[in-house]
């Protein structure tokens, strides 16, 4: 059963689609940001998974060990997580402003208000 070996990647695909679907289908601006976070998290897991080597240990030099996991993707994802946090912060700040200006964070109500103007 080879596909079980790709368990991580199946999780990545499922999370990615779940997140993407929420971003598209949800009308609530906060929920959209949650969806975006799930979408990004799936990519983080993808990078971490591809760094893993069968039988490899943490990339710290030890006598008698020859296989290590690749540390580079971990570092990349550390950066990407920081970027993700910043994006979430800006997104939420925008939602707060939208709530102040429109009195709602439902997309269709906002569009209705814009069209009424």
């Amino acid at each position, binding site marked *: 059963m080879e596909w079980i070996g790709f368990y991580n990647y199946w999780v990545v695909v499922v999370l990615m689609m779940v997140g993407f679907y929420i*971003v598209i289908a949800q009308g609530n*601006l906060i929920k959209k940001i949650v969806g975006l976070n799930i979408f990004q998290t799936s*990519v983080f897991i993808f990078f971490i998974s591809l760094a893993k080597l069968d039988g490899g240990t943490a990339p710290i030099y030890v006598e008698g060990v020859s296989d290590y996991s690749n540390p580079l993707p971990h570092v990349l994802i550390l950066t990407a997580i920081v970027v993700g946090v*910043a*994006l979430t912060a*800006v997104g939420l700040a*925008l939602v707060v*402003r939208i709530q102040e200006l*429109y009195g709602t964070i439902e997309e269709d109500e906002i569009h209705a208000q814009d069209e009424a103007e």
Partner: protein
Amino acid sequence: MGLVQLHLPAFQVILPMLAAPLVMLMARSPRAAWATATLVSWLSLAISLMLLVRVQAEGVVTYHMGGWLPPVGIEYRVDSVNILVLLVISFISAVVMPFARQSVASEVREDKHGYFYAAFLLANCGLLGIAITGDAFNIFVFFEIAALASYSLIATGRERQAVMASYQYLMMGTIGTTFLLIGIGFLYIMTGTLNLMDLAARLPEVNDTRTVRAALAFIVVGISLKLALFPLHLWLPNAYAYAPSMVTVFLSATATKVAIYVLMRFIFGVFGHELSFNELEMNLLLMPLAMLGILIPSIVAIFHTNIKRMFAYSSVAQVGYIILGISFASTLGLMASVLHLFNHAITKAALFMALGCIAYRLGGVSLIHMTGAGQRMPWTMTAFVIAGLSLIGVPLTAGFVTKWHLILAALDGGLWPIAVFLLGTSVLALLYVWRVVEVAFFRPPLRRIKVREAPLSLLLPTWFLTLACLYFGIETSLPVGLAERAAEALMGGYP
């Protein structure tokens, strides 16, 4: 070689990055914040020009961040392609800053100016970083720096729709950059490297795998979202229409252009046109999208009464022209694209600056506001008309030069229907520019307000860019020469 010369590529990015927090600390004094940001943007332009001199002398300027040798370390690499992009970004920001003082003062709350200019510098830093770096993951990070800064810049717009426009841009922009990240991940699996040159050298061995093709697909779709390729352009019209005038000028001239540069870099430099066009026939995808992208937004633009939004749609159409040039997959087509990248940047910046002058004096940029503006603000409107002619592509303007080269490239590829199509769509541009001219010059001004000509600090940058449109329409050797070398370098893949 002096220390500054040696570290020029690093200074190009680090200067605006370090100046941003400094400017933010000056939140109490808007004038000091503005002056510092202006100084930094001028220094950036000086650095770009010095890099241009070095690129013309040495061919390629490389810089190893922290002294780590590539492909392990991050490499900054300036060649004949991205020097042009660097010049466009730093030139536009150097011209837009003098314009910003009064324009921003009238459109953004005073206590926010420090943050505003800090965000501007960060956007500048991000865009320059995307252009200069030779590392795939670095491109992603700089994309996000530039994007985060532009979201906050757009959200400072006066109307409340600005915040919503910024939110929508955030959603679509993030999906775009995340797609890019997935694509980079696939490339890393297959090659174990992130350096663009190293990638280009190692990819041919694994070109036939599905992973590499998926990487190409993710990267192209992700970047297409960022550069607003039709039909992924939905974030652009609102973002440009509701952002403060100065932000619209800056973003319309630089943000989408840098994304186009990254697309060129990936499909020609990293994947190579052999894989992108001969094997996967991406031109069959890009060409129809580019043509639809020229046609539909141009028609939509004709029916809009908010002039800023109208020209935002026109920007989508102009992106279509650039992608069309790419889809020819020939040196001539690429050259036309690179040329249009430059010429459209100055043309659109001049147009949006003229609109900024109008917004400053008339308080809005709807057709109604502009009734009779030609008599009240003759200098502004004359600049508007000249830049408009350049947008249409009338001879003796910069726009004509690129249309000419695009048509030549189409004919060279044996695609004469596309040449006819290009001529036809110019008429659409004529239609929407004419609507403004008709209202502004051939109708009597509204009597209710006394309107004067825009102040000099707004007019001078506007006219500077307008004259640049004319200058580069007549004296074409500099951009054409640069574009020619850039196109040859891109077609040759990574040297």
